[in-house]
């Protein structure tokens, strides 16, 4: 990672973005006093170029773009360790959620966002089947991420153990699920929901 000069001014600090993160996550970023306890306990910290405390710090400085340019948010496992132990109750796990949503909404998939790809497929699965259909999920992920057969090595073994079902159990009220997705989309279109 290049260590780019940070020029701070009213123009370069994107406070609007920070406000969005705060609204989505329901958590203040200003409350953080950079104790680093979140990063100390984060199981994924070593995978991130910006450990959790620095993600909050960059938000405090209005540098959301620096976070989104990196992969940190895609490595967060949503384990809530940070949120639980933060002395100031900064809900970092929720902030990470918000950042992922904003990133995806703005830029769509990126090379770091396999996870999000998996997540999207997971949700697509819900929309189609009402429940998870793990075999399809795995297969689709491998196809779409270009990581052919990466995990399907485990597939046959799992199927033989009855762990991966060959057929999905489709929900009878599938129409209702579609309804939920539709109504949320509509609310967003009308600006009634974030």
């Amino acid at each position: 990672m290049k260590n780019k000069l940070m020029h701070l001014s009213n123009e370069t600090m994107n406070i609007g973005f920070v406000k969005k993160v705060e609204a989505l996550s329901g958590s203040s970023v200003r409350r953080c006093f950079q104790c680093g306890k979140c990063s100390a306990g984060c199981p994924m910290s070593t995978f991130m170029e910006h450990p959790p405390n620095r993600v909050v710090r960059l938000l405090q400085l209005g540098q959301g773009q620096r976070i989104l340019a990196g992969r940190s948010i895609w490595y967060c496992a949503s384990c809530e360790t940070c949120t639980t132990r933060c002395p100031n109750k900064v809900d970092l796990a929720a902030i990470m959620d918000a950042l992922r949503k904003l990133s995806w909404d703005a830029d769509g998939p990126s090379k770091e966002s396999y996870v999000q790809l998996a997540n999207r497929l997971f949700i697509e699965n819900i929309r189609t089947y009402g429940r998870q259909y793990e075999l399809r999920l795995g297969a689709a992920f491998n196809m779409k991420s270009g990581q052919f057969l990466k995990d399907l090595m485990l597939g046959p073994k799992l199927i033989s153990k009855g762990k991966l079902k060959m057929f999905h159990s489709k929900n009878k009220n599938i129409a209702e699920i579609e309804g939920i997705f539709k109504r949320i989309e509509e609310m967003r279109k009308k600006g009634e929901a974030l």
Partner: protein
Amino acid sequence: MSRIGVFVCHCGENISRTVDVEQVAKAAGEIPGVAYSCDYKYMCSDPGQTLLKKAVAEHKLDGVLVAACSPRMHEKTFRKAAEAAGLNPYLCEMANIREHCSWVHEDRDMATAKAKDIVKLMVERVRKGKSLAPITVPVTKRALVIGGGIAGIQAALDVADAGHHVIMVERDPSIGGHMAQLSETFPTLDCSQCIMTPKMVDVANHPNITLYTYSEIEKVEGYIGNFQVTVKHKARSVDESKCTGCGVCMTKCPKKKIPNEFDQGHGMRPAIYVPFPQAVPNTPVIDRENCTMFQSGKCGVCAKVCGPGAVDYEQKDTFTVEDVGAIVVATGFKLYTIDRKPEGSPIQGYGEFGYGTIPDIIDGMTFERLASASGPTGGKILRPSDGKEPKQVVFIQCVGSRAREKGISYCSKVCCMYTAKHTMLYHHKVHDGQAYVFFMDARTPGKGYDEFWRRAVEEEEAVYIRGMVSRMYQRGDKIVVMGSDIQVGTQVEIEADLVVLATAVQPQDGADLLAQKLGISYDKYNFYSEAHAKLKPVECATAGIYLAGACQGPKDIPDTVSQASAAAAKVMTLFAKDKLERDPVVAKVNEKYCVGCFACKKVCAYGAIEEKEIRDRQGNLVKKVAYVNPGVCGGCGTCQATCPSKSIELDGYTDEQIMAMIEAL
């Protein structure tokens, strides 16, 4: 009909430039009840005051109004002059036609009209004014000091040296408090006991100090200058007047394995004990919960071996009542322990550190005992679990402090410094050992303090890591410390042999209960509240009670001693007079109308309002009414505005006076 005199001042040209003073004087003269009016160039000058005095005599005035500058400027001057002329000083008022009129308006007509109005209002006030006599209360020149830590000791010695008698009440068997537990003290690293014990002995030997240890405050009555304090003397089971302090009982007591509180539970003591060898007084107490005699009626060894026959198993708690004029509260602090969240504590607890289940995670005070030459290890740094010398020691700052959601939001103030001290002491004692400190900031604002911290880093080679610790767990005989270094931006893992936590400084247990007995206020953490954060940091809002030391907020020794001496000075100021005199602007209750709802009592921040019983001649209770203690009333008038039956009135600001002014609008 009243005979009021109105004196309108020009203030050179300050007033007369925009206000037509002659017209004002003339208009004043036309107000009914005004017997005399005039204007003069400088009312506060000698001739001005003489003019006033003369007029009072000549015109038999029964009230005086000086229309001039702000009363904040010269009210005292003119009240004195009025008094000299034989008038009650509270019948002299000022109308502010300078700061509130001539200086803030340019239009002469309007300013003059306003000045006339102001005079008119104030004449009504004078008319309805009452003669008031200053309130005097006698002062008992004996002080009570609660708590025998360094704060209490310093305050007691100062007051006693000034020649006044002091009663010191200490809850524990010995005075000394936390300072007696410390090894060496920042910022000079002098031996704590070496500087502390002589002072403790001074207290014991001072002819002006009565020391009650193993005693508590039971009840406090009265007010500034006149408190009656009931002290409970807990049964020591040893007759202080007979005991010579020989210590034989302690060596012979068969119950020897009781964890010693003074050593933070790491040393042992018998059931009959003094907390530490230099204890003052050197009279043991029997810890009844651990004594076989008290638990099963057998033993009695100590009574047998005691030559003077001082041991007394039948001793009961006793009470004495002390009259004192001033109280210094110096009850100090306690340290937060990382145990599971205690009920009612603002601290959530530190499960991620094992809730105190890992033996080699200790707090700062325990480290002090380990480092102290008189401690359980004789000053060697040996860890509690297996007595080995730790080669890697991790210190963690701000545990419980500065954690508004997990713990408490304030900074404990002393731990940055004592942690730096601990790294030095450790380095002095274990040359091949390494100290690591997890910290957020080094808060070292004191004389020589930052230099001290830098010495720990630069010369004593402590490794400071800016970041906090998320988790610790035992693995084999090591403690795995998972932290982060936010400057490098990486996680840090250290396998420590010993971990020392700088845990939060909290008020003493029961601090709130003592405050309620004293009638002083305390904050949400139970630290006692000073009357003003900057200008009255030693006084309580309750008159006659002063604060010293860590009971008011976290403090190191220099700050504690400064505050203690300041509290002593306040006590001496109070004792400098035989009687207290104060402004008679105090509330009074009209008992005839008071319905005893005590709405007033609830709003009085000074605790000045008491419940008084009215009885008929047969002694039957007729009703309860409010009574305002004039020695305590601050004179705010809140009670009066609150009283639904208008039965309480503030002298100098009666409804009648104010209504009369409003009528004159």
